[in-house]
Protein backbone atom coordinates (compact mmCIF):
# COMPACT_ATOMS: atom_id res chain seq x y z
CA UNK A 1 0.00 0.00 0.00
CA UNK A 2 1.24 3.48 -0.81
CA UNK A 3 0.10 6.97 0.17
CA UNK A 4 -1.35 9.34 -2.42
CA UNK A 5 -2.70 12.83 -2.47
CA UNK A 6 -5.71 13.28 -4.70
CA UNK A 7 -6.84 16.79 -5.51
CA UNK A 8 -10.49 16.94 -6.51
CA UNK A 9 -11.51 20.24 -8.05
CA UNK A 10 -15.27 20.66 -7.95
CA UNK A 11 -16.78 23.37 -10.12
CA UNK A 12 -20.34 24.48 -10.76
CA UNK A 13 -21.74 23.47 -14.13
CA UNK A 14 -21.44 26.41 -16.53
CA UNK A 15 -25.17 27.23 -16.64
CA UNK A 16 -25.65 27.11 -12.88
CA UNK A 17 -25.85 30.45 -11.13
CA UNK A 18 -22.92 31.26 -8.85
CA UNK A 19 -24.05 34.08 -6.56
CA UNK A 20 -20.80 34.01 -4.57
CA UNK A 21 -18.75 34.35 -7.74
CA UNK A 22 -20.96 37.17 -9.00
CA UNK A 23 -20.68 39.14 -5.75
CA UNK A 24 -16.92 38.62 -5.66
CA UNK A 25 -16.58 39.80 -9.26
CA UNK A 26 -18.62 42.87 -8.43
CA UNK A 27 -16.34 43.79 -5.53
CA UNK A 28 -13.20 43.15 -7.58
CA UNK A 29 -14.55 45.57 -10.17
CA UNK A 30 -15.19 48.17 -7.47
CA UNK A 31 -11.58 47.67 -6.44
CA UNK A 32 -10.60 48.63 -9.96
CA UNK A 33 -9.85 45.27 -11.57
CA UNK A 34 -11.11 44.50 -15.06
CA UNK A 35 -12.83 41.22 -14.31
CA UNK A 36 -15.25 39.52 -16.70
CA UNK A 37 -16.47 36.95 -14.24
CA UNK A 38 -15.60 34.83 -11.22
CA UNK A 39 -16.65 31.25 -10.50
CA UNK A 40 -15.96 29.76 -7.10
CA UNK A 41 -15.43 26.04 -6.75
CA UNK A 42 -13.82 23.74 -4.23
CA UNK A 43 -10.38 22.25 -4.18
CA UNK A 44 -10.47 19.15 -2.01
CA UNK A 45 -7.27 17.37 -1.06
CA UNK A 46 -7.68 13.78 0.04
CA UNK A 47 -4.79 11.73 1.41
CA UNK A 48 -5.55 8.10 0.78
CA UNK A 49 -4.01 4.66 0.58
CA UNK A 50 -4.00 2.63 -2.59
CA UNK A 51 -2.04 -0.13 -4.30
CA UNK A 52 -0.90 2.12 -7.08
CA UNK A 53 -1.57 5.36 -8.82
CA UNK A 54 -4.28 3.96 -11.04
CA UNK A 55 -6.20 2.64 -8.08
CA UNK A 56 -5.79 5.94 -6.24
CA UNK A 57 -7.16 7.75 -9.26
CA UNK A 58 -10.12 5.39 -9.49
CA UNK A 59 -10.87 5.65 -5.78
CA UNK A 60 -10.72 9.44 -5.78
CA UNK A 61 -12.98 9.49 -8.82
CA UNK A 62 -15.51 7.35 -7.01
CA UNK A 63 -15.39 9.57 -3.90
CA UNK A 64 -15.91 12.62 -6.04
CA UNK A 65 -18.82 11.14 -7.95
CA UNK A 66 -20.58 9.78 -4.89
CA UNK A 67 -19.94 12.42 -2.27
CA UNK A 68 -17.63 15.33 -2.99
CA UNK A 69 -19.54 16.68 -5.98
CA UNK A 70 -23.26 16.84 -6.63
CA UNK A 71 -23.70 15.68 -10.24
CA UNK A 72 -26.93 17.60 -10.76
CA UNK A 73 -25.13 20.91 -10.54
CA UNK A 74 -21.39 20.32 -10.37
CA UNK A 75 -18.60 18.76 -12.37
CA UNK A 76 -15.21 17.66 -11.09
CA UNK A 77 -11.68 16.75 -12.09
CA UNK A 78 -9.21 14.56 -10.22
CA UNK A 79 -5.43 14.70 -10.05
CA UNK A 80 -3.33 12.23 -8.10
CA UNK A 81 0.26 12.35 -6.90
CA UNK A 82 2.17 9.81 -4.89
CA UNK A 83 3.52 10.90 -1.52
Amino acid sequence: MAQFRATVVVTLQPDVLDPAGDATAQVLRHMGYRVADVRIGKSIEVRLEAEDRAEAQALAHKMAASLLANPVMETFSVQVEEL
Partner: protein
Amino acid sequence: MRVAVVTFPGSNCDDDTVRALTALGVSPVRVGHRAQDLSTVDAAILPGGFSYGDYLRGGALAAQAPVIESLRAEVASRQLPVLGICNGFQILAEARLLPGALRPNRQGTFRSAWQTIRVTRASPLFWGLEEGELLRLPIAHGEGAYYLPPGQLAAVFGNDQAWLQYVSEDGLLHTEANPNGSVANLAGVIVGSVAGLMPHPERAMADYLGSADGARLLQAWLSGISRRDGHAR
Protein backbone atom coordinates in the same frame (compact mmCIF):
# COMPACT_ATOMS: atom_id res chain seq x y z
CA MET B 1 -24.36 62.22 20.45
CA ARG B 2 -24.08 61.13 16.84
CA VAL B 3 -23.81 57.37 16.49
CA ALA B 4 -23.49 56.02 12.95
CA VAL B 5 -25.07 52.68 12.05
CA VAL B 6 -22.97 51.60 9.08
CA THR B 7 -24.71 49.33 6.59
CA PHE B 8 -23.48 47.28 3.67
CA PRO B 9 -25.53 45.58 0.98
CA GLY B 10 -26.96 42.56 2.82
CA SER B 11 -26.75 43.96 6.36
CA ASN B 12 -29.92 42.80 8.07
CA CYS B 13 -29.62 43.68 11.75
CA ASP B 14 -29.47 47.41 11.07
CA ASP B 15 -33.15 48.03 11.85
CA ASP B 16 -32.86 46.08 15.12
CA THR B 17 -29.74 48.07 16.03
CA VAL B 18 -31.35 51.41 15.22
CA ARG B 19 -34.36 50.41 17.32
CA ALA B 20 -32.15 49.39 20.22
CA LEU B 21 -30.20 52.65 20.18
CA THR B 22 -33.40 54.64 19.91
CA ALA B 23 -34.76 52.83 22.95
CA LEU B 24 -31.64 53.96 24.81
CA GLY B 25 -32.29 57.56 23.87
CA VAL B 26 -29.88 57.99 20.99
CA SER B 27 -31.09 58.77 17.49
CA PRO B 28 -28.53 57.09 15.27
CA VAL B 29 -27.64 58.16 11.76
CA ARG B 30 -27.55 55.57 9.02
CA VAL B 31 -24.40 55.56 6.96
CA GLY B 32 -24.02 53.54 3.77
CA HIS B 33 -21.05 51.51 2.61
CA ARG B 34 -19.92 54.19 0.16
CA ALA B 35 -19.62 56.93 2.81
CA GLN B 36 -16.31 58.79 2.63
CA ASP B 37 -16.62 61.26 5.46
CA LEU B 38 -17.19 60.18 9.04
CA SER B 39 -15.66 63.24 10.62
CA THR B 40 -18.91 64.37 12.22
CA VAL B 41 -19.85 61.17 14.05
CA ASP B 42 -18.95 60.34 17.64
CA ALA B 43 -19.07 56.57 17.26
CA ALA B 44 -19.98 53.88 14.74
CA ILE B 45 -21.70 50.51 14.92
CA LEU B 46 -21.33 47.86 12.24
CA PRO B 47 -24.50 45.76 12.71
CA GLY B 48 -24.96 42.10 11.95
CA GLY B 49 -26.25 40.49 8.80
CA PHE B 50 -24.93 38.86 5.68
CA SER B 51 -23.06 41.66 3.93
CA TYR B 52 -22.61 40.58 0.30
CA GLY B 53 -24.31 37.34 1.25
CA ASP B 54 -21.28 36.34 3.34
CA TYR B 55 -19.99 35.07 0.03
CA LEU B 56 -16.30 34.18 -0.24
CA ARG B 57 -15.81 34.59 3.56
CA GLY B 58 -18.03 36.33 6.09
CA GLY B 59 -17.17 40.03 6.04
CA ALA B 60 -14.47 39.77 3.38
CA LEU B 61 -16.27 41.58 0.58
CA ALA B 62 -17.65 44.30 2.85
CA ALA B 63 -14.15 44.95 4.20
CA GLN B 64 -13.29 46.40 0.77
CA ALA B 65 -16.03 49.06 0.91
CA PRO B 66 -14.99 52.74 0.91
CA VAL B 67 -16.52 53.34 4.33
CA ILE B 68 -13.94 51.00 5.86
CA GLU B 69 -11.13 53.31 4.79
CA SER B 70 -12.98 56.24 6.37
CA LEU B 71 -13.39 54.25 9.60
CA ARG B 72 -9.74 53.30 9.56
CA ALA B 73 -8.75 56.93 9.24
CA GLU B 74 -11.02 58.10 12.08
CA VAL B 75 -9.80 55.32 14.36
CA ALA B 76 -6.20 56.21 13.64
CA SER B 77 -6.59 59.96 13.97
CA ARG B 78 -9.05 60.34 16.86
CA GLN B 79 -9.72 56.86 18.29
CA LEU B 80 -13.30 56.80 17.01
CA PRO B 81 -15.23 54.22 19.05
CA VAL B 82 -16.32 51.42 16.69
CA LEU B 83 -18.46 48.43 17.66
CA GLY B 84 -18.87 45.47 15.32
CA ILE B 85 -21.67 43.03 16.07
CA CYS B 86 -21.62 39.54 14.49
CA ASN B 87 -21.11 40.26 10.78
CA GLY B 88 -19.77 43.65 11.86
CA PHE B 89 -17.13 41.83 13.92
CA GLN B 90 -16.28 39.67 10.90
CA ILE B 91 -15.88 42.78 8.76
CA LEU B 92 -13.60 44.46 11.31
CA ALA B 93 -11.44 41.32 11.49
CA GLU B 94 -11.29 41.04 7.69
CA ALA B 95 -10.33 44.72 7.55
CA ARG B 96 -7.55 44.04 10.12
CA LEU B 97 -9.04 46.59 12.48
CA LEU B 98 -9.21 43.69 14.92
CA PRO B 99 -6.85 40.73 15.17
CA GLY B 100 -7.65 37.18 14.07
CA ALA B 101 -10.35 35.80 11.83
CA LEU B 102 -13.80 34.24 12.13
CA ARG B 103 -14.02 30.76 10.69
CA PRO B 104 -16.96 28.44 10.05
CA ASN B 105 -18.38 27.02 13.28
CA ARG B 106 -16.66 23.86 14.38
CA GLN B 107 -19.86 21.80 13.95
CA GLY B 108 -20.16 22.98 10.36
CA THR B 109 -23.65 24.39 10.79
CA PHE B 110 -25.22 27.72 11.62
CA ARG B 111 -25.95 28.08 15.31
CA SER B 112 -28.71 30.14 16.86
CA ALA B 113 -29.11 29.92 20.64
CA TRP B 114 -29.14 31.82 23.89
CA GLN B 115 -25.70 31.94 25.38
CA THR B 116 -24.10 33.19 28.59
CA ILE B 117 -21.17 35.53 28.06
CA ARG B 118 -18.65 36.64 30.65
CA VAL B 119 -16.91 40.00 30.70
CA THR B 120 -13.31 38.86 30.95
CA ARG B 121 -11.72 42.33 30.92
CA ALA B 122 -13.46 45.52 31.88
CA SER B 123 -12.79 48.33 29.43
CA PRO B 124 -13.29 52.08 29.66
CA LEU B 125 -15.08 51.77 26.32
CA PHE B 126 -17.93 50.04 28.17
CA TRP B 127 -18.41 52.13 31.24
CA GLY B 128 -20.01 50.24 34.11
CA LEU B 129 -19.60 46.77 32.62
CA GLU B 130 -17.57 45.06 35.34
CA GLU B 131 -15.05 42.28 35.01
CA GLY B 132 -16.72 38.94 35.71
CA GLU B 133 -20.23 40.14 34.87
CA LEU B 134 -22.42 37.58 33.10
CA LEU B 135 -24.68 38.52 30.21
CA ARG B 136 -27.33 36.40 28.52
CA LEU B 137 -27.36 37.17 24.81
CA PRO B 138 -28.47 35.41 21.63
CA ILE B 139 -25.92 34.18 19.13
CA ALA B 140 -26.81 33.51 15.50
CA HIS B 141 -23.95 32.81 13.13
CA GLY B 142 -22.43 30.29 10.78
CA GLU B 143 -18.91 31.67 10.88
CA GLY B 144 -18.25 32.54 14.48
CA ALA B 145 -15.25 30.41 15.41
CA TYR B 146 -12.69 32.97 16.45
CA TYR B 147 -9.23 32.06 15.22
CA LEU B 148 -5.85 33.52 16.12
CA PRO B 149 -2.60 32.51 14.44
CA PRO B 150 -0.19 30.56 16.62
CA GLY B 151 1.41 32.71 19.28
CA GLN B 152 -1.14 35.51 19.20
CA LEU B 153 -3.41 34.18 21.91
CA ALA B 154 -1.00 35.12 24.69
CA ALA B 155 -0.66 38.58 23.24
CA VAL B 156 -4.42 39.08 23.04
CA PHE B 157 -4.82 38.12 26.70
CA GLY B 158 -1.64 39.92 27.73
CA ASN B 159 -2.70 43.19 26.12
CA ASP B 160 -6.16 43.15 27.68
CA GLN B 161 -7.77 42.59 24.29
CA ALA B 162 -9.67 39.46 25.35
CA TRP B 163 -12.98 41.10 26.18
CA LEU B 164 -15.81 38.55 26.22
CA GLN B 165 -15.87 34.76 26.58
CA TYR B 166 -18.54 32.10 26.19
CA VAL B 167 -19.24 30.45 29.54
CA SER B 168 -21.78 28.02 30.97
CA GLU B 169 -24.93 29.36 32.61
CA ASP B 170 -23.22 29.41 35.98
CA GLY B 171 -20.30 31.38 34.60
CA LEU B 172 -17.76 28.60 34.21
CA LEU B 173 -15.31 28.55 31.38
CA HIS B 174 -15.17 25.13 29.77
CA THR B 175 -15.24 23.61 26.32
CA GLU B 176 -18.86 22.51 26.51
CA ALA B 177 -19.87 26.15 26.86
CA ASN B 178 -18.12 26.93 23.59
CA PRO B 179 -20.84 27.11 20.93
CA ASN B 180 -18.67 27.31 17.84
CA GLY B 181 -15.07 26.32 18.43
CA SER B 182 -13.68 29.77 19.18
CA VAL B 183 -10.15 29.79 20.52
CA ALA B 184 -10.20 30.19 24.31
CA ASN B 185 -14.01 30.60 24.12
CA LEU B 186 -13.46 34.16 22.90
CA ALA B 187 -16.73 35.89 21.99
CA GLY B 188 -15.41 39.42 21.69
CA VAL B 189 -12.18 41.41 21.55
CA ILE B 190 -11.19 45.03 21.95
CA VAL B 191 -8.21 46.81 20.43
CA GLY B 192 -7.93 50.46 21.29
CA SER B 193 -11.26 52.07 20.49
CA VAL B 194 -12.48 49.19 18.31
CA ALA B 195 -14.59 46.38 19.79
CA GLY B 196 -16.13 43.35 18.13
CA LEU B 197 -18.42 40.60 19.43
CA MET B 198 -20.35 37.71 17.91
CA PRO B 199 -23.47 37.79 20.18
CA HIS B 200 -26.34 40.17 19.46
CA PRO B 201 -26.94 42.71 22.24
CA GLU B 202 -29.52 44.53 20.12
CA ARG B 203 -31.79 41.47 20.32
CA ALA B 204 -31.73 41.33 24.13
CA MET B 205 -33.45 44.61 24.93
CA ALA B 206 -36.39 43.46 27.07
CA ASP B 207 -37.26 40.60 29.38
CA TYR B 208 -40.07 39.47 27.10
CA LEU B 209 -37.50 38.89 24.35
CA GLY B 210 -35.58 36.58 26.69
CA SER B 211 -33.16 39.05 28.29
CA ALA B 212 -32.46 42.74 28.74
CA ASP B 213 -28.71 42.26 29.10
CA GLY B 214 -28.09 43.61 25.62
CA ALA B 215 -29.49 46.94 26.73
CA ARG B 216 -26.95 46.90 29.55
CA LEU B 217 -24.08 46.29 27.16
CA LEU B 218 -25.12 48.94 24.66
CA GLN B 219 -25.85 51.43 27.43
CA ALA B 220 -22.35 50.82 28.82
CA TRP B 221 -20.89 51.58 25.39
CA LEU B 222 -22.90 54.82 25.09
CA SER B 223 -21.86 55.80 28.61
CA GLY B 224 -18.23 55.14 27.77
CA ILE B 225 -18.50 57.43 24.74
CA SER B 226 -20.24 60.22 26.68
CA ARG B 227 -17.69 60.16 29.47
CA ARG B 228 -14.82 60.15 27.06
CA ASP B 229 -16.15 62.97 24.94
CA GLY B 230 -17.85 64.83 27.77
CA HIS B 231 -21.07 64.73 25.77
CA ALA B 232 -24.38 65.46 27.31
CA ARG B 233 -26.97 63.05 26.01
